[in-house]
């Protein structure tokens, strides 16, 4: 387990740092000035130092200089309210890995500490089982992709928000804002797969708004919500920077087709966190279902490779949202997945409904796979 020393004359800052990094599973040490920090480093080895600049007795730059003079190359992340370029440039010269300006967010510190230790970004969840030595660390898994199931609606009419919510499947999260500014704020905080924007949004320059939305959400599909007010309105909306148009009032079929295009054709079908693999539901028309299964099968091969690379010998496959409208096809898909996992040597625990269990039971390839009705049960069985 990596050991981290936080050196700061503020007790509250040391506590915040210890709490934030302690959450990642690191062992924390504390010192209230540079002299105490050097003493701690002599007493026991640390993998990283989180260091303030201004402190009594011996300040951060003084401590860092003494560390380097004595040949101590422990990585250092500065955590300071000092932003003067000349001071930070001098610290960089002495060898610091990164810098965090106070006041700070815990997430920023965590990300920079993990990077300095060459640990994967999802260390908190996946990395505990990984070796402490950065050199031995397994390749990181991609973080879960919440964008696959999140929609933003920007429209000044609240009823439009309600209508979208009523037409979208429950597993898709819908956020809404009444104006562009709030919508941009939501885009800074979350990741979206689909953004629906009123084509007549008051006080907004649409080309400028779409350009800004693309900067914030490069992977999202931008769709204009508009009336059929003119023959060339779709062309006009494309010219304003939108990918697609959804006409008001919304027809169920049009919304379903749009969701199918966004969430199936964009291949945001599988999310993976640690050894938990979750399959997204199907939101399109029936004639697109085969396409969904083909895409899903291709994605599962990539997922299996990543699991194996990350040294997982077992995995949970959450198929709760797998569509069962074509039962044979669904069963066949799951059986194929079970077979591939078995061949790779990764033990699979399947989560799904009783109906899925019955379907899967018909396939020889799925024999021996344990099926659970909830994620909790599957995890508990590990």
């Amino acid at each position: 387990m990596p050991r981290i020393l936080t050196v700061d004359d503020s007790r509250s800052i040391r506590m915040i740092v210890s709490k934030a990094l302690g959450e990642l599973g690191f062992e924390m040490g504390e010192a209230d000035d540079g002299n105490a920090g050097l003493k701690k480093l002599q007493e026991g080895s640390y993998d990283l130092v989180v260091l303030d600049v201004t402190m009594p007795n011996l300040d951060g730059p003084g401590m860092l200089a003494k560390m380097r003079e004595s040949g101590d190359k422990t990585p250092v992340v500065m955590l300071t309210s000092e932003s003067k370029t000349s001071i930070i440039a001098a610290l960089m010269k002495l060898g610091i890995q990164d810098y965090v300006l106070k006041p700070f967010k815990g997430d920023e510190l965590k990300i920079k500490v993990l990077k300095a230790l060459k640990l994967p970004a999802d260390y908190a969840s996946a990395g505990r089982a990984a070796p402490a030595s950065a050199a031995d660390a397994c390749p990181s898994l991609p973080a879960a992709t919440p964008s696959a199931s999140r929609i933003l609606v920007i429209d000044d009419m609240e009823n439009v928000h309600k209508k979208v919510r009523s037409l979208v499947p429950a597993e898709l999260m819908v956020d809404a804002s009444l104006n562009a500014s709030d919508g941009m704020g939501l885009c800074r905080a979350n990741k979206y797969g689909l953004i629906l924007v009123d084509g007549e949004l008051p006080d907004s320059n649409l080309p400028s708004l779409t350009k800004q939305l693309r900067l914030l959400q490069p992977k999202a599909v931008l769709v204009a919500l508009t009336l059929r007010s003119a023959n060339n309105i779709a062309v006009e909306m494309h010219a304003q920077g939108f990918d697609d148009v959804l006409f008001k009032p919304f027809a169920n079929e049009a919304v379903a087709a749009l969701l199918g295009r966004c969430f199936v054709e964009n291949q945001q079908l599988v999310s993976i966190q640690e050894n938990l693999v979750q399959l997204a539901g199907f939101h399109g028309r029936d004639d697109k279902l085969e396409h969904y299964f083909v895409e899903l099968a291709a994605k599962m091969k990539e997922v299996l490779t990543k699991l194996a690379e990350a040294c997982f010998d077992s995995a949970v496959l959450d198929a709760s949202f797998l569509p069962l409208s074509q039962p044979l096809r669904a069963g066949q898909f799951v059986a194929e997945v079970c077979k591939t996992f078995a061949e790779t040597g990764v033990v699979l625990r399947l989560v799904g409904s009783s109906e899925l269990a019955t379907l899967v039971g018909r396939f020889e390839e799925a024999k021996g796979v344990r099926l659970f009705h909830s994620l909790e049960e599957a995890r508990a069985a590990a």
Partner: protein
Amino acid sequence: MKFAEQLEQIVKARIESDSLTLPALPAVAFKAIELTRAPDINLQDVVALIEKDPILAAQILRLCNSVAMTTREPCSSISQAVTRLGTKNLRTTLVEISARRIFESRDVKIAAAVKALWEHSRAVAQLAQRVAVVAGAADPDTAYLAGLLHDVGKPVVATILLEAESQILQRNARLWIDFSTWMDVVQRCHRPIGLSLAQKWQLSDEIQHAIQECADYDPGNRLSTGNAVRFANAVAKQLGIYAGAVNAEENDALVMVGRSLLGIDDETLTRLSKDLKEKSRDTA
């Protein structure tokens, strides 16, 4: 006294005595900006005014249809361009076109340098605008204009230096100044001139602040226009989109501090700056 020092003193003396003739905003651009600020604005009056200046009109159309303004069908008339841009963007466009003229020189000695400075300014403008969007700064368009004008004093100083140089050379033909020293003098003298020009063009206080100081961030106002411009300026220099010497250590420190100050992670910075070289060239 060394020749470079003589030149610097001449420039500084002219700044202190307020005897510099700074480039004015072209009359039509100035009038058009005034019209767009009027509470009872009539866009047709603005269109009619711009159409009286064919060069300005052509430049507005070119900028409106440039790569930077992607996604739209091309504009074919000033009326279309003005409607599409909106008043705020039109003002930005008019200032941009006017500033572009300052970054032109018939003198071969400085033409290439001021062109490179203009490309640097374009890159800083675009990156500052993107950073303002992602970080949540108040006005990305102001950040764009501030980035575009943060070095506007440099070509003005360059022109003054040329005049001063020829005066001194008439007295002592043996003296000459090498290019790097010459750029060094420009670097040391340009800020007050850029600020005076911004004041003369009646640009906002935010833009004036961004021009005034680029050495350090303002940690008390993390999402300020000035901070976005300082960060963009340092990143553009790191990417090599610059003319002149760069203190690499201080510049790297500016980038490191700016990333934390503005909350820009590595992945986002790579995404925001990946097409900067091409974009600054395309639109210059």
